[in-house]
C-alpha cells in the first residue's frame, strides 16, 4: 500500500511542507560518544516521518531531546516557528508532543482504563469523573481498534495490545505529534500490520507521527519521508517515493545491507547441549486479598532440545511462552521440576549457576542493563562479570588480578571494537551498542562450549547487528553450540541451522530455516498454524 492512497487529501495539501517541528543544529555529548552532532531535522504536519539509522546513530537521543527527556548541549527546537526549550516530558506534552517508548511503561496490575488515565485523570474538585474517563477512553479504543474490555488488567494483554494501550495513553493526553520509538521491534509480522493500520488511522485523524525504526521494508511501507542518521549526524532526508531499501541501507551504514546468513555447514555429531524432558512449574500467588493462594502453573512442558557442536539452534516464539524460563533453567537460576540438562555429556541439572558458568556456559542476556552490566562500575570490572573466578581475572579462584583484568578488557575492547576512551570509564558512559559489544566480547573471549544468546540484537542498529551476527557465525565456526532465542524472525531464519517454535511452554514444531518464511514462522508462533 502506498501513502498516496491513504493520505487524507485535505490535511496534507493545506500545509504540504511547512515544518511543524524543526530541530536546528542539535548536538548532544555523552561520555565516550557524540550522540548527536549538528543535526537538522524537520517534520511537516500530518506526515509519517521515519527516523532511520544504526544503533548509536543517535535516533533515540534526538527523540529524547524533542520529548524533553534530555536537554541538547547545542541547537534549538522550533515548533510552529517558535523557539522553545523543554525541561521535561510534561513541557513536551503541553506542546502536544507524546512519545511511545520501546519498553512499555505500563502498570501490569492496573486495568487498561486505569493505565490510560493514570496521571491525567479528569477530576472535579479532586474527585475523579469515572464515567467521563470511561467514555473518553472507550471512544479512543474504538477508533484505534483496541477491542479489549477497558477493565481488563494489562497483564492479560498480548504485546501488540499493550502497545496500543501505550499509544492510546499518549493520545488521551491530547497530543498531535507522536514519537514511536522502534514500535515494531517487539511485534510479530501480523501485529506489525495491525500497528500500521493504527498508524494510518492516526494520520487520517490529523496526527503527525515520527517513527523510529531500522527495518527498511517497514519504513518504506509506512513512512512519507525518511530521515537517515549516521554516527550522530543527519545524512539525508528523502521522500518515500524516491527511496529504495538499497539506497537507505547505504545511507545508514555506508555499505550494503548485511544479511544474516550462516554460509557453510559446520555441524558435527557431538552434542554439546542437551535438554531432556524438561518440565518447569512456577508457583505464584493467585487470587486476591485473603483468598489468595499459591497457584501452580506449568511453564515448560516436556521440552527436548539438543544442540550440536558448531550448530545454532533458534528458538522462536512470542514473548512469554516460556523462553525466559527455559534460559533460567539452563543457567541454573530456576529450579526445574523434572527433566535433565546435559552440557558436553555431563549432567549439569544439579549444578549451581557458578559451576555452569565456570564450565564455560556463555550467556548474552536479553536485557543488557538489567542482566548484563554493573552500570556504575568501570568497564574492566564489567568484563569479568560471570568469569570472576577464572583466569585471567582471578588466580586460584580467590585472588582478583586487577591489572590482568584490565589488560584482558583492553583486548576485548580492541577485538570487538568497543568504542571507549578507556577501560576505566563506567559502563554507563557507553552507548547501548558498545555495551552490547562488550558483553558479547566478554562471553566469546572466554571460549565457551555452549552459548545462550537471548535477543542478541534487540534494540541495536544494522551495523552493530551485522557485527553481532558475524560474531555468532564465528562462534559457530569455532565449534560452539549456540542456542539463539530471538523475536527477530529474519535473524532466526538467517542464522539458525535448526529452528524450534515454542508455544505455551511446549516445542510445537521443528522447522528447517531454509524452507520457512517469516510469515509461516509467525503463524506457528501465534498458534494459527500447527
Amino acid at each position: 500500500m502506498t501513502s498516496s492512497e491513504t493520505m487524507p487529501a485535505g490535511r496534507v495539501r493545506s500545509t504540504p511542507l511547512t515544518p511543524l517541528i524543526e530541530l536546528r543544529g542539535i548536538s548532544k555529548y555523552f561520555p565516550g560518544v557524540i550522540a548527536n552532532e549538528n543535526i537538522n531535522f524537520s517534520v511537516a504536519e500530518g506526515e509519517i516521518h521515519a527516523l532511520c539509522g544504526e544503533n548509536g546513530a543517535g535516533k533515540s537521543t534526538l527523540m529524547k531531546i524533542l520529548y524533553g527527556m534530555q536537554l541538547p548541549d547545542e541547537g534549538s527546537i522550533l515548533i510552529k516557528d517558535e523557539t522553545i526549550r523543554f525541561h521535561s516530558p510534561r513541557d513536551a506534552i503541553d506542546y502536544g508532543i507524546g512519545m511511545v517508548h520501546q519498553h512499555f511503561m505500563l502498570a501490569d496490575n492496573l486495568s487498561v482504563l486505569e493505565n490510560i488515565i493514570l496521571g491525567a485523570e479528569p477530576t472535579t474538585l479532586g474527585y475523579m469523573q469515572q464515567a467521563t474517563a470511561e467514555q473518553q477512553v472507550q471512544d479512543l479504543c474504538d477508533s484505534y481498534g483496541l477491542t479489549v474490555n477497558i477493565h481488563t488488567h494489562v497483564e492479560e494483554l498480548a504485546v501488540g495490545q499493550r502497545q496500543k494501550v501505550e499509544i492510546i495513553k499518549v493520545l488521551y493526553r491530547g497530543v498531535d505529534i507522536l514519537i514511536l520509538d522502534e514500535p515494531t521491534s517487539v511485534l510479530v509480522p501480523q501485529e506489525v500490520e495491525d500497528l500500521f493500520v493504527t498508524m494510518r488511522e492516526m494520520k487520517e485523524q490529523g496526527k503527525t507521527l515520527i517513527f523510529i525504526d531500522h527495518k527498511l521494508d517497514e519504513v518504506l511501507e509506512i513512512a512519507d519521508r525518511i530521515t537517515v542518521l549516521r554516527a550522530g549526524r543527519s545524512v539525508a532526508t528523502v521522500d518515500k517515493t524516491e527511496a529504495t531499501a538499497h539506497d537507505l541501507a547505504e545511507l545508514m551504514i555506508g555499505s550494503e545491507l548485511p544479511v544474516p546468513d550462516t554460509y557453510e555447514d559446520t555441524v558435527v555429531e557431538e552434542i554439546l547441549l542437551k535438554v531432556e524432558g524438561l518440565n518447569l512449574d512456577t508457583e505464584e500467588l493467585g487470587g486476591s486479598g485473603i483468598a489468595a493462594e499459591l497457584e501452580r502453573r506449568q511453564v515448560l512442558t516436556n521440552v527436548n532440545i539438543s544442540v550440536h557442536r558448531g550448530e545454532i539452534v533458534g528458538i522462536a516464539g512470542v514473548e512469554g511462552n516460556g523462553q525466559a524460563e527455559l534460559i533460567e533453567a539452563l543457567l541454573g537460576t530456576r529450579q526445574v521440576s523434572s527433566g535433565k540438562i546435559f552440557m558436553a555429556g555431563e549432567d549439569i541439572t544439579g549444578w549451581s549457576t557458578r559451576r555452569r558458568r565456570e564450565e564455560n556456559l556463555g550467556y548474552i542476556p536479553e536485557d543488557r542493563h538489567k542482566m548484563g552490566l554493573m552500570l556504575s562500575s568501570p568497564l574492566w570490572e564489567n568484563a569479568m562479570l560471570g568469569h570472576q573466578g577464572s583466569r585471567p581475572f582471578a588466580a586460584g579462584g580467590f585472588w582478583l588480578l586487577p591489572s590482568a583484568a584490565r589488560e584482558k578488557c583492553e583486548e576485548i575492547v580492541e577485538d570487538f571494537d568497543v568504542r571507549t576512551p578507556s577501560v576505566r570509564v563506567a559502563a554507563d558512559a557507553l552507548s547501548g551498542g558498545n555495551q552490547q559489544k562488550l558483553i558479547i566480547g566478554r562471553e566469546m573471549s572466554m571460549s565457551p562450549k555452549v552459548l545462550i544468546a537471548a535477543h542478541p540484537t534487540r534494540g541495536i542498529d544494522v551495523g552493530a547487528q551485522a557485527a553481532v551476527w558475524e560474531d555468532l557465525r564465528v562462534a559457530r565456526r569455532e565449534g560452539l553450540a549456540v542456542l539463539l532465542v530471538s523475536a527477530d524472525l529474519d535473524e532466526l531464519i538467517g542464522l539458525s541451522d535448526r529452528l524450534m517454535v515454542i508455544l505455551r511452554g511446549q516445542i510445537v514444531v521443528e522447522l528447517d530455516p531454509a524452507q520457512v518464511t517469516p510469515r509461516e514462522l509467525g503463524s506457528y508462533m501465534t498458534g494459527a498454524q500447527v
Partner: protein
Amino acid sequence: MTSYLRERFSLRRAGWEVLTPALTLVVAAIAATIILLATGYSPVSAFQNMWSKGWELEQVVDMLNRATPLYLIAIGAAIGFRMNIFNIGVEGQYLLAALVASYVGAQFSIWAPAHVGVIMLTAMAVGAAWVAIPAILKVARGVHEVISTLMMNVIGIAFVSAVLLRWWEVPNKVEARDDLPAWFVNTPNIQTREIPESGRMPDINNVLEVFTRDIERGQTGAPQKYLWGFLLVAIVVGILYHIYVMRTRHGYDLRAGGANPDASLVAGVDPKRMILFAMLMSGAVAGLAGLPEILGRDYAYSLSFTQMLGFNGLAVALIGQNHAVGAAFGALLFGYLDTAGPILDSSGDAPEEIIVIIKGAMIFTAIIVYAVVRRRQLADQARTASAVLAKRDSGEVDEGEHPK
C-alpha cells in the same frame, strides 16, 4: 590506550574524589555557622576554639579513641552496604557483643594474646549471632532487614540492660583514675566482673609519643590520656576489608551482588548465600566495636558504657562511601567533632548539641553532594571522552590508539 590518557583520567578521578568530602565539610560548616548565628553565638570564636583546642595532643588521643569504634562499626556496616544490605542493627549487635565478651573474658585467665583473641572472637560471634536472626528471616522469608534489624536493636538493648546485666552484675566502686570525671568516681555502678590483666589490651601511648611530645601526666604521675591499643586492630580490620573487597573474588561477588543483583545472579553469585554472608560478617565486625573501650579502659561492661556508636558508625560508612580510606576519614572527623563538643560547652561558645546538628548536616549534605558530584563527573568524562573520540574519528590518532 596511551599511558598519557590513562594518567589524565586517573588524575581527574583523584581530583573528583577529594572534591566530594571537601564539599561536604564546607556545606556542614556553613550550616553550623548559620545555626550559631541564628541562636546568637559567635561562629568565629566557636570554630577558633574547636580548632585550637581540638588539636592538642590530649584531645587527639580522645579523638582517636572515639574514631576506633566508629571505624569498626563503619566497616561492619560497609560490608552490608556493598551488598545493598542496610544493617541498621549494628547498635544492638555491638552492645550485646561487648557485654557477652566482657562476661566471658572475666571467667578465666590465660596467656594474654590468646585471652584477648578469645574475647575478640566471642564479640564477633555474638555480633554475628544477633544479626543471624534478621539474616535468616530475610533469606528464608524475605523480611526486610531494615525493619528486622531495627527491632533487634531495641530487643538487644533491652536484653542487655534488663536481663544480662542483672544476672552478671557485681558489686562495684569506681576507682579514681585521671581519665575519668570526678563525679564518676565512687558512684555505684552496675557492671560485670572485671577482665583480668591478661585479657586487657595495653595502651599505645609510647607509639604515639614517638611522633609527638609526651602526653601530660596527672597528679599520680600516670598519663592523663591513654591511646587504646585497639586502634591497631581497627587499622588491620580496615586493611583486611579493603583487600577483601577490592582484591578477592568473593569481595567482587559481594560488590556485584550489590551493584546489580540480577546480573550477578546469572554471573553465578548465589544471592541468598551472599546476603547471609554479608549480614553475618557485618554483625561480626560491628561486634568488635565495643571492645576498644572494654579492653582499653573499663575492663568490664557497665551502665556507663558508650551507646549510640552504632548509628554514628552507620553515618561514618555513608560519608566514607563504604571505602576503607573514606571511612577512616569519616571516623576521624566524627571523632574530632565528638571531642570538640565538650570543648565548645566548657568554653561557653555554643551548646554541645551544635555538634549533633553539624553531624546531621554532614550526613544530609553527603548524600546530596555525592549524587551531584557523581553526575558532574560523568558529564566531565563525557566531554573528555567525546573530544578524544572526535579526534580519533577525524584521523588525528595518537600512537597506540585502536586501529579502528
